[in-house]
């Protein structure tokens, strides 16, 4: 009965094995897997995520942290928080595989932001899903006006992709500032929340697209600062959301956020679509 789509037996829930090329320890609890697509190429857009599967242990949503123009490999930056992420951290390069489904989700608005200033603001591991956007901006530098990266993290020991951030800091076609919440005596940089860096960089609020990723409270405070302090329109502020998705294709129900399925309607959202949900407890 009923007219339906073609029967799908082996469906999108079955992951494809990708060989692990390298495992790089980034921070004490964070590592990056470099993976080899079995058919040679993997296509995605900056901001998208995959479901990463550790054989027999489980599957977790992880955003892609490598450049979208580099199609022959795929990098996923992962923090050890539970059984699956710990298992993913024990894989042996060249020998083990991890399962991949995807890419899923909406991308950062790289096309819509052409001809505008880019204000890229990351908190903690939130820099990982932003890195493909930064790579894209640098690879297509003429498409954008000013490119600004502001990064906040807990301590100087928690600076993700530090070598790269420092290298971008030395370039004059991109502005990169770092701040930490708490510092020791060896730190000579900024201390305080990431929003305090906004006033230290030049950008044209009327012609800027902001891309923000970090803890929900950090994204809320940042978006409010940009709207109230700089009169930025909420539709030009993008955030990326996270939930404990099980399917990635809008049928498990775990990532519901108001009327949104974060996995298919996001994870990247203009602030206009989700801003009103942030201050309701337990949405």
């Amino acid at each position, binding site marked *: *009965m*009923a007219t*339906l*789509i*073609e*029967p*799908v*037996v*082996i*469906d*999108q*829930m*079955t992951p494809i*094995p*990708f*060989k692990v090329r390298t495992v790089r320890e980034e921070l004490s609890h964070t590592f990056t897997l470099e993976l080899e697509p*079995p058919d040679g190429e993997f296509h995605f857009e900056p901001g998208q995520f995959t479901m990463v599967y550790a*054989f*027999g*242990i*489980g*599957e977790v949503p992880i955003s892609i942290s490598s450049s979208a123009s580099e199609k022959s490999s795929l990098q996923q930056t992962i923090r050890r*928080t539970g059984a699956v992420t710990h298992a993913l951290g024990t894989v042996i390069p060249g020998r083990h*595989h991890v*399962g991949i489904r995807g890419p899923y989700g909406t991308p950062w608005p790289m096309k819509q932001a052409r001809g505008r200033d880019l204000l890229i603001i990351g908190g903690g591991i939130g820099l990982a899903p932003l890195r493909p956007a930064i790579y894209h901006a640098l690879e297509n530098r003429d498409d954008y006006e000013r490119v600004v990266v502001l990064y906040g993290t807990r301590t100087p020991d928690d600076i993700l992709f530090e070598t790269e951030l420092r290298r971008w800091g030395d370039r004059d076609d991109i502005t990169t500032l770092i701040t930490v919440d708490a510092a020791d005596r060896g730190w000579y940089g900024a201390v305080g929340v990431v929003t305090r860096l906004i006033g230290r960089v030049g950008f044209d609020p009327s012609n800027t697209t902001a891309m923000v990723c970090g803890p929900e409270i950090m994204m809320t405070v940042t978006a409010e600062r940009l709207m109230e302090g700089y009169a930025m329109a909420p539709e030009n502020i993008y955030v990326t959301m*996270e*939930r*404990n998705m*099980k*399917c990635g*294709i*809008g*049928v*498990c*129900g*775990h990532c*519901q956020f*108001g*009327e949104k*399925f974060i996995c*298919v309607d996001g994870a990247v959202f203009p602030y206009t679509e989700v801003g*009103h*949900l942030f*201050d*309701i*407890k*337990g*949405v």
Partner: protein
Amino acid sequence: MSEMYVSGQSGIGRLIQALAERGHRVIGPVVRNEALVYDEIKGVEDLPKGWTDLQEPGRYRLEQRGDEKLFGYVVGSASWKQFLNPPETVLWSGTLSPEGFRTDPLPEPPKYAFFGVRPCEVAAMQVLDNVYGSDNGTPSMGMRTATRELTFIVAVNCVEPGGNCFCVSMDTGPTANSGFDISITEIAHNGNMRYLIESGSEAGTEILDEIVGLEEPTDAEIAAQESSLAEAAANMGRTLDVEGLPELLKGNARNPRWDSIADRCLACANCTMVCPTCFCNTIDDNLSLDGKHATRTRKWDSCFTLGFSYMHGRPMREGVGARYRQWITHKLATWVDQFDELGCVGCGRCITWCPVGIDITQEAAAIRRADLRDTPIGIGGLA
């Protein structure tokens, strides 16, 4: 309207037989463990002749009717989703190999015939088709779509709604208008049980053509059917005012009423288990002792459990009030944003099987009475 037939109970038996002969596993209502459940039936003698189910908030009892009705009950205790979207299904299993792992072939989807599907339940299947279908860009998960396509649906219209029924409010009953292969209405006419049978699809017509002994209904029988169904529509146990409901619920995310529900709700998840449209699920992983064979099993999950929203060491929906709000707001509000229809069909199961009798229609009405959208507390809801 397609051709209409009428028969006695023997015709119903021949229909069950014909479906079985066509290779369908026929599932229908049976009485077991003092409840009316859906399970395999072999013939008309398996149907719950003379039984009914009394349903009230938090209360369910089987009783003898004192008549010969086959379909004199309200609705099965658990819905048909247990067959189309089983509580546990192996999504896939696989074995380690040099290329990573190889997946095992999946079993063939079962070929069911559902016998005695209430109009609200037909509607619920269509609601889930939209969830699992391609409408929102989300392809099928597991075997549901394949199983669904093979399933033959025999709907049975409702002439005696139960105490918790509100299909008229949800526009899903008491008469099934589409989504079935055959529909049946049971009427007591001149002291006999008569079954008015209609086809709703080519497959339905084909099978009805083969069944011997079906007669043409008399005008009096057709009139009796019409009046029974009209009477049923007028006798709903409950009503739910759906006018402006999505905006109402989304605008009342901060209503203190949620706290009052939290004081009563046990977060037991019964309502989501018996709901014919609740589709949330999770995935369990199993690994063989030698570490070489893995199985991923999809299982029903519920937004009422604390673990459902667990992320980075804490639940996102900590309070029971937030979890009830999520459930009712999804059913009656955000479902419309997602799938262009309401997610409730008015079957009343969530009211019956709630251990403390929380009533979705009453809670929606309570929010309407205490609408806070025009007060400071109402500003910035989910809307």
